[in-house]
């Protein structure tokens, strides 16, 4: 590619490379075949690998996930696409009661190497049901790995890692970044479970994942202009959680703000805030602040900018970190 690839192209490349490397990788879902997915993440896979490796299914998400469970039981590595975040909910029982639990149920005799890809989050001007940040439902469910990239290189690497992983992975793709063009580095495949410090900083730490990482970086940029030096941690993996990286960053700065799009109540952001508050208690100069979506259903396009955590709201939270106390 002469031009820098989009995240969609990075994901597409990951699928292609995984399918080429391992004949047991199969891709299926709604519109993933001829159409190449409504976002074109599966573009060209049927043409390249044939109908048996990448195919359309009837329109039924529980059926898709349930069939993937069976195929994984029988030696394949299914990668299924849920068309949008809210359209994974029909598969919830399959995901919670089976995908997450069959390994444990069978004392490890049946492992399910499968990936459920979910384009998630807002900021695309989408109508209702197309912009949910649904990570908390998965992250709260023991037995699932929950991964979300924030860069194109991670999108590629983490998807490869997810497909190779022996356990089921819910792979959350920040659709707001789907069309972001970035240099793509194919080589460093980050192991699932490692956060990364995207920006060092000494005054406070912003903790983010997926679609909130670029927002956090922009906020840090702006803060720098205002004389405040913010670190940014990109979780990359929500489950497992990289306590080490997060805790170390917060201890260095003594202050932390968690940024996430999902409604804040009983969310992944709550977890991060609770963990950090507990583990860094004596290092904290101020309470851990959360900048999240409001506790409302995802709003219509014309109001979403008020709902989503933006640079200003993050910087307000940073301002609130009781700087005068120290």
């Amino acid at each position, binding site marked *: 590619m002469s031009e820098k690839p989009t995240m969609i192209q990075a994901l597409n490349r990951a699928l292609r490379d995984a399918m080429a490397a391992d004949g047991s990788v199969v891709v299926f879902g709604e519109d993933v075949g001829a159409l190449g997915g409504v976002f074109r993440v599966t573009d060209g896979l049927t043409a390249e690998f044939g109908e048996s490796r990448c195919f359309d299914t009837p329109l039924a998400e529980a*059926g898709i996930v349930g069939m993937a469970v069976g195929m994984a039981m029988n030696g394949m590595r299914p990668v299924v696409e849920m068309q949008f975040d809210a359209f994974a909910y029909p598969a919830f029982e399959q995901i919670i009661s089976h995908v997450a639990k069959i390994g444990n149920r069978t004392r490890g005799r049946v492992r399910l190497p499968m990936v459920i890809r979910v384009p998630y989050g807002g900021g695309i001007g989408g109508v209702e049901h197309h912009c949910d940040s649904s990570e908390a439902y998965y992250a709260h469910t023991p037995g699932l790995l929950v991964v979300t990239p924030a860069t194109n290189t991670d999108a590629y690497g983490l998807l490869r890692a997810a497909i190779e992983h022996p356990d089921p992975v819910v792979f959350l793709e920040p659709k707001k970044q789907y069309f972001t063009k970035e240099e793509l580095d194919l080589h460093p495949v980050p192991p699932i479970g490692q956060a990364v410090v995207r920006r060092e900083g000494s005054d406070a730490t912003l903790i983010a994942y997926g679609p909130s990482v670029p927002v956090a970086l922009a906020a840090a940029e702006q803060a720098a202009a205002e004389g405040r030096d913010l670190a940014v941690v990109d979780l990359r993996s929500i489950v497992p959680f990289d306590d080490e990286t997060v805790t170390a960053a917060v201890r260095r700065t003594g202050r932390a703000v968690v940024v996430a799009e999902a409604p804040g109540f009983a969310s992944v952001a709550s977890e991060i805030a609770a963990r950090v508050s507990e583990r860094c208690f004596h290092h904290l100069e101020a309470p851990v602040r959360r900048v999240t979506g409001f506790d409302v259903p995802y709003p219509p396009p014309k109001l979403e900018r008020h709902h989503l955590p933006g640079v200003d709201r993050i910087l307000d939270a940073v301002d609130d970190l009781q700087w005068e106390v120290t």
Partner: protein
Amino acid sequence: MERLIDETGAVVGHGLPAPEVLLDGYRALVLARRLNEQAGALVRQGRLAVYPSSHGQEACQVAAAAVLEETDWLFPTYRDVAAIAARGVDPLDVLVMLRGEWHCGYDPIATRVAPQATPLATQLPHAVGVGHAARLKGEDTVVMALCGDGATSEGDFHEALNFAAVFAAPVVFLVQNNKYAISVPLSRQSAAESLAAKGVGYGVPGVRVDGNDLAALTVVLTEAVARARRGDGPSLVEADTYRIQAHTNADDPSRYRDDEEVQRWRLRDPLLRLRVHLTSTGALTPELEADFAGAAEEMAAHVRAGMSQDNALDPAELFAHVYSTPTPQLREQAAQLAAELSGGDR
């Protein structure tokens, strides 16, 4: 398959609805077609974010609304803008969702039209509930529940049909089989002989009807509604039709179907055949045609005018409707946003 007027406009069956009924229906078709066109134009002009056109399916849209009484309910999907308009709801209110202003722009209780359903087939159990509640209250309300061929694959389709049958709920399930679920063809959706055949598994009568034949649709749906109103339970009607345009403007149908197929279906256009028929019987005069076209233009102008008004949206609405009374948490969050907007914060 039930058919009364074939694609050439010839009458091929008995029991045609009265000419006035067909004339009213034709007028509604003209308006529905115009609405589809107008909405498409608004999308191209960037004044509407997205529009799932029912071009080619207007007979289903019009018939679904026409056979209902005012006290009945309509349960539409995202593709059924024209059906809702045919029921009498202002198209501008219907388009509020696609303008990105709010999720549902009309009053479902006042209009007896449920919010347009996006998650496929999920509206069908609601329709059963509305119908069952009506029966418990001693009302003879009938519920017309729409869905597409793709939606029949969802578990909720199954559960709704089964509940309706077991409770003999007054629901007419109308499947607009337009042959595609976005890009996925019918053959990937079902291996059954027809979608109407699905009724057998629930003990529900299933009828297949030419979905581009307004006359046949009117007869079949009128009978299904009457059956439901009598207390004889639900029906499943499969309308054989076709989505002429893209799934939405965001879709690229050239990836999954060839133009030839589309052309074949254009010949079966629902307006065309009814116009031929009504003209041949003399019911449709050039004056009436002009009249209908005028009404359609008026409606289109109304839509265009409404679209250029930028409705002010109060950000406080974010919190206002989540619960009947906002929780303390939402009051706090609303106050935070208000402070931000008044510049209280940065």
